[in-house]
């Protein structure tokens, strides 16, 4: 009995030593010399491998950072400024403060749900449906509702809303841009979060002529240009029957929201719905209301016509 135990211990022990030697030699011989900084940078990254930076994953991003030894042209959207600062510290370089961004879905579902003209019965994929026809709403620019963006999101930040158009959870959204890339109709755009999370944007990408667009959707942008006229910052441009608000110039005064005849312009994060200002006491009613709320909740406040 003792002898058997002894043999087993010796055999296994010898095997262990031999394999350990082999492992050691192989590890030494095929050692990959790598900048330890890459590991450190990779450590501070979120590790979601979302691909929002344009690299294959977080490690590839870290390699790129270390290779050029700066953060020029490289930004980890999910990590935001905090991560950028940490990387900058590790690399010992300067960092530009970026503005926090969020994905915005530019399609207005309010009125097209019940005006459905067809029933899509094929593969649940926007990319495929886009090659078949306009989609259930009949709008050749509108949301197809199969959720390619939802599938693309690594952060559980975008979900199909009750009316078949996705809704972004601004708290979870890291602005990696995966959803915007996945959307075959380029409806999703990355815009700045705005002061106090308040944003104003044109919730439509329809470039058809006004009358044609109105036929399919009552909330379509008809390119009338009223918003551009009323904007005090000249932030709004109308091109190809479609108006666009430059978020870098927009001050979220919401004059365009009340001016828009179709309700295509949306305001998000405001405590009270926009009210068309009386001719003289402009903005008076909404300004004090806004001050009462300290942290505005990112809620969807829809404009009813």
């Amino acid at each position: 009995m003792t002898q058997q135990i002894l043999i087993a211990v010796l055999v296994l022990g010898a095997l262990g030593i031999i394999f350990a030697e082999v492992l050691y030699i192989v590890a030494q011989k095929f050692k990959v010399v790598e900048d330890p900084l890459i590991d450190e940078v990779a450590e501070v990254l979120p590790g979601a491998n979302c691909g929002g930076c344009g690299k294959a994953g977080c490690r590839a991003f870290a390699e790129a950072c270390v290779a050029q030894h700066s953060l020029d042209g490289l930004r980890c959207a999910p990590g935001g400024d905090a991560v950028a600062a940490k990387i900058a510290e590790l690399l010992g370089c300067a960092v530009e403060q970026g503005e926090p961004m969020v994905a915005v879905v530019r399609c207005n579902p309010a009125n097209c749900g019940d005006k459905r003209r067809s029933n899509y019965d094929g593969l649940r994929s926007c990319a495929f449906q886009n090659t078949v026809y306009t989609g259930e709403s009949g709008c050749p620019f509108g949301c197809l509702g199969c959720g390619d963006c939802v599938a693309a999101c690594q952060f559980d930040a975008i979900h199909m809303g009750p009316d078949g158009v996705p809704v972004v959870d601004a708290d979870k959204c890291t602005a990696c841009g995966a959803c915007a890339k996945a959307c075959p109709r380029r409806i999703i755009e990355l815009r700045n979060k705005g002061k106090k999370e308040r944003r104003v944007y044109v919730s439509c990408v329809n470039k058809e002529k006004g009358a044609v667009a109105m036929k399919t959707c009552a909330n379509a942008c008809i390119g009338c240009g009223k918003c551009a006229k009323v904007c005090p910052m000249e932030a709004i441009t109308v091109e190809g029957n479609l108006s666009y608000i430059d978020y870098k110039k927009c001050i979220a005064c919401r004059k365009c929201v009340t001016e828009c005849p179709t309700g295509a312009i949306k305001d998000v994060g405001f405590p009270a719905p926009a009210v068309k200002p009386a001719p003289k006491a402009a903005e008076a009613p909404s300004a004090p209301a806004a001050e009462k709320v300290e942290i505005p909740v990112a809620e969807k406040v829809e404009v009813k016509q």
Partner: protein
Amino acid sequence: MNILNVSGSPHVHSDESTKKIMWRVNMALVPALLCAIAYFGLPALLVSLVSVASCVLFQWLIEKFIMKVPTSIGDGSAVVTGLLLAFNVPATAQMLWIVVIGALVAIGIGKMSFGGLGKNPFNPALVGRVFLLISFPVQMTTWPVAEGLFPMGFDVPTGATPLGAFKEGALGEGVTFMDAFLGHIGGSMGEVSAIAILLGACYLLWKKVISWHIPVAFIGTAFLFSGILWLIDPTAYMDPVMTILTGGIMLGACFMATDMVTSPMAKSGQLIFGFGCGLLTIIIRNWGSYPEGVSFAILIMNSVTPLLNRWFKPTRFAV
């Protein structure tokens, strides 16, 4: 105005469905079931009922409470598993509770843990059967012997299967080819009657649920290989006709190896699959510690199915 449906082409379907396929397999198992009841009486019926009921129940419970998906028991696949599991155990009263455990393993581990029908790498009924064989070796090898038709009562005489007897050194004396063909031999419920199984298999072939490749390759290989061995030494090895008629080769080749989910897709791959099954069965029977090797052979070949799918591609139209 009508709301029109829109989809990519094609706009028609052959009306073939998983449900239809599964219920056809169930139909094909009926002759063997009737034979089992005829030979082994009430226990056979009860074991089958318990097995099917518990398979369906376990699938429903797992889908409803663990996976939280819409239940799919209506597609008949759990019934197939239940029947095949019952066919693989001896028809004795003591199996009634053991087969429930088998059903839990077959459905729970064999099928649902991989994600349900279509995703299991191994034939669920065989997973259940092998689990039982290893866990309850005595009960699983206490074979009732059919004596006359429709025996009533539970104390059916037991005895060895021809394969078991052969393993013990008795060359299956007294068992004629006709006995084996019709099923007058000891064995598990579904495997005894070759004719009933062939009847079911013909129905499946006619309905195009299975193709001839796997059964023919399986039985053919077993026949050839055992024939070669028999020619070398007729005293040590069983004769080839008896080899394919006894034990689970018929049942395995026609119903278990042909399981769509766990067998290769391409016809060439199916031939290799059948060949492997036949070869392994004979190897296990002659040189393994168990008298029967069909279940193990099929499970081993199941495990190489993905590889066969990768290696054996259909012939392309033109390269």
